[in-house]
């Protein structure tokens, strides 16, 4: 059931342009609110969906790079109103982009899911991805998200059984985020053949677009995923453009811009005779 037309429009547009969608993640408020806003605009120029990370004190599923992003954002005093303000500004500048808020359950739970959903919708957000709300617990916020036309995006992983895939397909909306590896963000990407096989299984149970993330570090990897996934998610690699340029705002923005353009160019779906060739250059 595709409730949110905005996200499905993004995927349809990409498909019509014969490419996979690029989803870019940055933590809101990293390294501070003002600069984060600039970095989000930079990323928004070339991604199809922007994942805005809500910083959290205890990011249990994240590797050191995104943990660091959360720590910097919180140390800089980032609050939920800053996260939402960034989302709204991105929405105003880029009306066609998909916007997803990503983070951990305790933030929206503590604010109250109803308040959170209302504010997120008002900020132009299309979907919400909460890492520690699996399908079994999705009832805790499903109704209120639906009421505000926000997609509840579900994750699937290499350890997900067919039964779990069915469950996620049933409660999930917007797209399915397939985690390429059994691990935390920023680790090495999983084996491409295994990812491809698992995506086939996911597609047997869901009509939702399937995006692959965790561990995508360069355009070669992204290009391979783009041949069979509906979208490719890049997070830690973009955050690293911040960490490697701390103190030099211009270099930070320029480095991120280059990196995003590079990945965006890799989203093109090759003619089928080239696909096998790409697959072999591993």
């Amino acid at each position, binding site marked *: 059931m595709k409730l949110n037309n905005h996200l499905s429009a993004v995927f349809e547009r990409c498909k019509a342009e014969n490419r996979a969608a690029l989803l870019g993640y940055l933590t809101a408020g990293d390294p501070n609110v003002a600069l984060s806003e600039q970095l989000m605009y930079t990323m928004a120029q070339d991604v199809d969906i922007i994942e805005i990370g809500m910083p*959290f*004190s*205890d*990011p*249990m*599923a*994240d*590797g050191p790079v995104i*943990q660091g992003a959360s*720590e910097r954002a*919180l140390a800089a005093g980032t*609050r*939920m109103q800053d996260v939402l303000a960034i989302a709204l500004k991105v929405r105003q500048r880029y009306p066609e982009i998909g916007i997803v808020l990503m983070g*951990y*359950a*305790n*933030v*929206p*739970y*503590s*604010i109250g899911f109803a308040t959170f959903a209302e504010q997120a919708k008002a900020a132009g957000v299309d979907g919400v991805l909460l*890492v*520690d*709300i*699996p399908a*079994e*617990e999705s009832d805790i916020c499903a109704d209120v998200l639906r009421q505000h036309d926000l997609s509840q995006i*579900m*994750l*699937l*992983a*290499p*350890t*997900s*059984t067919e039964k*779990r895939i069915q469950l*996620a397909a049933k409660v999930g909306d917007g797209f399915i985020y397939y*985690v390429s*590896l*059994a*691990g*935390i963000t920023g*680790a090495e990407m999983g084996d491409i053949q295994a990812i491809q096989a698992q995506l086939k299984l996911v597609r047997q149970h869901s009509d939702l677009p399937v995006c692959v993330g965790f561990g995508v570090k360069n355009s070669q990897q992204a290009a391979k995923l783009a041949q069979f996934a509906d979208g490719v998610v890049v997070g830690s690699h973009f955050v690293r453009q911040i960490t490697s340029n701390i103190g030099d705002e211009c270099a930070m923005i320029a480095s991120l811009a280059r990196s995003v353009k590079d990945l965006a160019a890799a989203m093109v779906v090759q003619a089928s005779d080239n696909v096998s060739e790409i697959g072999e250059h591993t």
Partner: protein
Amino acid sequence: MKDIYDLEIKHPPDAGGHFGMFGGRFAAETLMQPLQEIEDAFFAAWADPKFHDERMDLLHNYVGRATPLYHAQHLTAAVGGAQIYLKREDLNHTGAHKVNNTIGQALLARRMGKKKVIAETGAGQHGVATATVAAMFDMQCDIYMGREDIRRQAPNVFRMKLLGANVVPVDSGNATLKDAVNEALRVWVASCEDTYYIFGTAAGPHPFPLMVRQFHAVIGQEARAQCLAQAGKLPDVAVACVGGGSNAMGLLHPLRDDASVRLVAVEAGGHGLDTAEHAASLAKGKPGIIHGSLSYVLADAEGQISADAHSISAGLDYPGVGPELAYMMDEGRLELDSATDEEALQAFQTLTRAEGIIPALESSHALAAGMRIAASMDEDKVVLINLSGRGDKDLGTVMDLLDLADDGQTP
């Protein structure tokens, strides 16, 4: 004694591991199937008499159960009031109650064919208990411990290393117990195929709160029978300290259906409940989601977990609490109390001098509150206190705080 160990799972959570609104399995997708496998293995093992034969054999002959119930008459006299009985979990092998759980979970890990175990630890007691069973079962063992806790619990770090465990320091956050849990979860996500995570407290995602409670139920089951035999009646009050809640669930849960028994959970008051520096999640927290379950959490209005959580005792220095304790509190079955760092330190010395028993700083919180309660009651009443661990690991901390120079004593 054997028939006191009731294997019926009383007051079970729902199929998803919820105790009322609390509990559940708020875990990353990658961990959902591994957690389901542990749940399935746990219920299969629990229904298998052979599992319990081996578990109880180890608890008797390796751990030294049943632990005594000691009528602390000198302490009772010093306090003046109700009769104080101490459940001597400090006399377990490894020096605390924690081993009841690690024996159970290590047996489960072995049944599941896992060759490696990991665990988080705060005071180091769960780390030592895990490293101990890993040595016995010949399993590889990594223990995640906050760097701050490594500093204040040095003897336990040395014990873990001697036992062959790899102690991994955790620097993120406050470098204490919650951060060690975060790191262990991250490592487990990437290694769940061959690695079993021995969770150390009655918190975390389902089935850990249920499983840890069941493995520690021996504490309350023994204490209940011993109290009936020695005091001729059930205790009027049962008291346990609470960090995550493993020793509290162990003592209190088997007494839950005895309506006449007051159940008291003592949280770490740190510098005082009117400051931000305490670890009283039940008294001062609010419902939230951390480490895989919904329970009371010390967090700000936007859900950021408190960085100020503090206790003199590393084992209680945790901003969350087990979901079933949250449920029992909301139901009105659990009374809350707390003891500050200062009160715990005082109780530590009082018990040591009165009875020649040096308690862990964690257990000293239960003692502080238990003595206070006993003092307000008549002599014919019985207060049962869980002495969850011994204090050897805390000697360094206490010596520093009491300024006991190592130069002998003035005559």
